[in-house]
C-alpha cells in the first residue's frame, strides 16, 4: 500500500480541505446564508407567522441526518454550481426582492448543495419542499393567495349549498345564505390546509423514498385535494351557520380537523399510490 507524503504547506492545507465531511460543507453553506435564517427566526419570534416551519425543519434535519452516512465524497459539479448560483442569487436578492424571496432562494441553494452530495438514487425534491416549508410562508401565502382562494372557496361552496336547496349567493368573499351574512375571511382561505397537505406529501415522500419524478406527478393531486377539502369544510360550516345551528368553536375545530385528516390521508394514499406504481 502506497501512502502519499505531503511535503508542501499548500498540499497539507489541500488535504485538510479534502478531509472536511460533506455535512460540514453544507453547514458552512447554511452559515453563509445566515442572514436569511435570522430573518425567518425573527418572523417566527415576533408572532407575524405561525411557527409551523419548525415542524418542517425538524423533519428535514431528521432526513438529512439519515442521509449523512451515505453522502458522496465527490460532489456533482453541476449541482454544486447550481448551489453556488442560487446562493449568489439569494445574496443579490437582498438588494432586489422581498426577504421571503431571498429566503426561498437560500433554501433552494441549500437543497442544491444537498443534492450535490446525495446518492444518486435518493430523491431531493421532497427535501427541497421541506426546506421551503420550513420558512415563514403562511402569512405571505395568505397575503398573495388568500383572497383568490377565498373567492374560489366561497363560489364553490355557494354552488354546493344551492345544490342542496339553500338560498345562497356570493359577493366578493362573503356569502349570503338564507338571509344570513357569512364571511369567508383570511382564516377560512385554506392556506393553512395547503401548508399541511404539502408538508404531509413531502414528509411521506421522504419516508417512502419516492422518486423526484413521481413526487412531482403527485403534487397536482395534493392541490386538488386541498381545494376540495376546504370547499367541503367551508360548505359544511356555512350551512350549519345559516341554519342558525349553534355551532360551538369546539365543533368548528372538530369539523376542520376531521376534514384535514381526510385530506392528509388522501395525500398519503396518493403518494403511496405513486410509490406502488413505481414498484
Amino acid at each position, binding site marked *: 500500500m502506497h501512502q502519499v507524503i505531503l511535503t508542501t504547506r499548500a498540499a497539507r492545507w489541500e*488535504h485538510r*480541505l*479534502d*478531509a*472536511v*465531511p*460533506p*455535512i*460540514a*460543507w453544507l453547514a*458552512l453553506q447554511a*452559515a*453563509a*446564508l*445566515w*442572514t436569511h435564517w*435570522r*430573518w425567518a427566526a*425573527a*418572523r417566527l419570534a*415576533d408572532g407575524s407567522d*405561525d411557527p*409551523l416551519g419548525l*415542524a418542517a425543519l425538524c423533519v428535514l434535519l431528521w432526513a438529512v441526518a439519515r442521509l*449523512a*452516512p451515505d453522502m458522496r*465524497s*465527490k*460532489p456533482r*459539479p453541476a449541482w454544486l454550481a447550481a448551489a*453556488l448560483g442560487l446562493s*449568489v442569487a439569494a*445574496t443579490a436578492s*437582498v438588494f432586489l426582492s422581498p*426577504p421571503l424571496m431571498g429566503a426561498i432562494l437560500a433554501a433552494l441553494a441549500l437543497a442544491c448543495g444537498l443534492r450535490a452530495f446525495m446518492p444518486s438514487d435518493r430523491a431531493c425534491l421532497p427535501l427541497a419542499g421541506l426546506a421551503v416549508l420550513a420558512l415563514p410562508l403562511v402569512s405571505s401565502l395568505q397575503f398573495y393567495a388568500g383572497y383568490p382562494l377565498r373567492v374560489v372557496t366561497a363560489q364553490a361552496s355557494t354552488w354546493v349549498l344551492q345544490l342542496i336547496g339553500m338560498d345562497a349567493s356570493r359577493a366578493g368573499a362573503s356569502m349570503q345564505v338564507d338571509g344570513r*351574512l*357569512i*364571511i*369567508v*375571511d383570511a*382564516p*377560512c382561505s385554506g392556506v*393553512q390546509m395547503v401548508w399541511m397537505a404539502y*408538508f*404531509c406529501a413531502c*414528509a411521506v415522500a421522504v*419516508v*417512502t423514498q419516492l422518486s423526484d419524478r413521481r413526487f412531482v406527478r403527485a403534487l397536482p393531486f395534493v392541490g386538488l385535494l386541498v381545494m376540495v377539502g376546504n370547499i367541503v*369544510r*367551508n360548505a359544511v*360550516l*356555512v350551512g350549519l*351557520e345559516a341554519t342558525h345551528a349553534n355551532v360551538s368553536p369546539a365543533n368548528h*375545530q372538530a369539523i*376542520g*380537523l376531521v376534514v*384535514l*385528516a381526510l385530506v*392528509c390521508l388522501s395525500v*398519503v394514499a396518493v403518494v403511496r399510490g405513486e410509490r406502488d406504481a413505481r414498484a
Partner: protein
Amino acid sequence: MFFLRYPLRPLTHLGRVVLCIALSLLAAVLMLISPPSQADDSQALPAQSPYFAVDSADPSVDRLPLKSTSVDVRIAGVIADVTVTQHYRNEGQRPIDARYVFPGSTQAAVYAMSVRLGDRLLTAHIEEKQQARIQFDAARKQGKTTALLEQERPNVFQMNVANILPGDDVAVELRYTELLTPTDAQYGFVFPTVVGPRYNSPQGAAAQEKWIATPYLREGVAPSAGFELKVSLDSPLAVKDVVSSSHEIEVEGLGSRHAQVTLASDRSDRPHGNRDFILGYRLAGDRIESGLMLFRGERENFFLAMVEPPKAIATAQISPRDYIFVVDISGSMHGYPLETAKELLVHLIGGLRASDTFNVMLFSGSNRMLSPASVPATRANIDQALRTIAQMGGSGSTEIVPALKRIASLPKQPDVSRSVIVVTDGYVSVESEVFQLVRKNLNQSNVFAFGIGTSVNRHLIEGIARAGQGEAFVVTKPEQAAAQAERLRRMIDSPVLTQVKARFEGLDVYDVEPQQLPDVLGGRPVVLFGKWRGDATQPTQGKLIVEGRTAEGAYRSELSTGERETQTTSALRLLWARQRIATLSDQEALEGGQQQKAAITELGLRYSLLTQYTSFIAIDQVVRNSNPALTPTVDQPSPLPEGVSALAVGAEVPSTPEPAAWLALLVVMGIVVATVATQRRR
C-alpha cells in the same frame, strides 16, 4: 461528536476551493448588508375608527379618569348661557394624560375655559390651533399640568388634560352661549351627552382624523362618569309646558317667569349620560319673544332681531311632487333607530297623494333603489315599498356620499318639484363633503333631513337642511314619527314666507348675518344678527322691516328699536361672531380646502371663541410630573348612545376559520408518524 465519528472523505480540489471562496464572500456580503428582520409596515396608516374599550392590563393606570360632568344652564329670554364642568380624578398609581371626545350643541359659541387644580385656578386663553397644540405638547413634555380644548366639528370637541398625578382632582370648566330659536312657538334646549360612533369612510377627507378613533363601552354598559344638569329659566312671560322627551325631570316655578329644572332619578335606572337631554317649553299665550335686541359695547354695538312668521295657510292648489327617500340602513341604525325610521317612513310614504311620485333608496356600504325610476304613489306601490322597507335590518358601513351622488344623477322632469328626504342618524365623518354635494348637485331639489335616534349628529342633519334649503327634523322615538311626518307635509304644501328681505330704517347697520334670508318653511322665526353704529350718548331710534310673500300675497312686518336697548345682552357679540363663523365655514365647505381659515382664525382670536382653527389652552407653570415621557395617554371611553347597537362600532360576522394551527399540526404529524410506522412494518 457526529463529525469526528464520520469518516473523512476527500473532495475534488476545484470544487472545494471555489465553494470555500464563494461562501466566504457570501458571508461577508450578507454580514455587511444584513437586512432588517422585521417586515416594513411604516407606510401602513392606522385605521381611524371607533372601537370598543378594553380593560387595562396595567392596574396602576386609571383608564376612566373622567368622574363626572355637571351642566348649569341659565336661559334668559332667548339666550342660553351654559357652564359645563368636567371632573377628572386620577385614582391610579401612575400619572396620566387624559383625552376625551365629547359633544356640544351645534350652535354653541364656546367662549371661555378654566381649570381648577386643587386650590389654584388656571384661566385658559384662546390660541391659533396649531400654536395651542405646540404649547400643549411642550408643557406636557415638561411635566406641567395642562388642558387643551379643540373643536373637531361644530358639535364635537376634544379635551386633552396632561399630567394628572395620582390623587389629582382636575375640574375643567367651559362656558358657551347659544340662541334658542322656537319652532311653532315651542322653545327647545338640547344638551348632547355623547358623540355617536362615526363611520369613517376610507375615501373621506376625514379618514385620518384621530378623534374618530374613540373607545366605546359595550352595548348596555352604563357610562362610567356621573351626569348632572340643572336649568334655570328666566322669561319676560310665564313659562308653561316644560317637558323633556329624553329624561325625567323635576320642575319648580311652572307658570311663573322663573322656573328651575333638574334631572329626576330615573325609575327604570336609565343612566342620564347616554343620550341628548332635550327640554321643551312654551311661553304664556303661545307667544314667542320676538323683537329687536340691541347691545351697546365698548368698541362695537350688536343687534339681534327675531321676527315671528305669519301662520301657515294651506294653499288651494297643490302641485304634484316627486319624493325621493334616502334611508340609512347601516349598522348604527340597527335595532331601535331603524324601527323608528320605519315608523317614520310609514307616515311619510303612507301620506303621499296619488298624484305624487316617489322612490326609495336604501344605503349602507352600497345603495339600491327600490324602483328604477319614481313610481306613482298608488296604494299598491306604497304597500310594496313599505313591505320591502319593513324587511330591512341595519348592517354595514355608511357610505352616504356615493348614495347622494346617485340621487343627484337621477333624471328629473323639469316641471315637477322634487323633495329629497334623508333619513339617518348622521354617524359619519364626511359632513363637509355632504354639504358640498347637496349645495352643488342637489340645488334643483329641496332637501329635508330627518335625524333618527337619541344622540343624532345634528351638525349633519342641520347642515344638509341648510345646504338643501330644507328643514331639519329629529325623531328620537317612534311615537314622534306621525307628528314629524305631518310637520314636513305641512311645510312642503304651504311654505309660510318666501322671497324674504329685511331692511333697517333709522339704524345704521352693517355685517348683517345671514346675508341672504332663507325661505321660512314653517314655524320658525326670521332671525338676524348684526352690528350697528350709533352715538353713545343718544338713545337709539330705528326700525326693522321684513318683507316677503305668503300664500295670501305680500307680507310686511315692522319692529321698532325704541326702548329695546340693553346692556345685559353681551352674548350678542359672541352669537354674531358664531353666526359669522358658521357662514364662513359653510362657504369653506362649498369651496373645499381652507379658504376661510384666516378669516375664521381672526374672528376666533378676536372674540375669544373656539373654532376649527382656534383652541383654548391652560397651562400650569409648576412642573409636577418628573417623568412625563413615560406617562400613558388614556382615552376616556364613551357609552354607546341609548338604542344604538354594537353594530355601530362593528360586530362579529360568522365565518368558517380553519382549526387551530397546533391542533392541525398534531393531526398531520400523527398521520406522518403512522405512515412511518406502517412503512417500517412492511
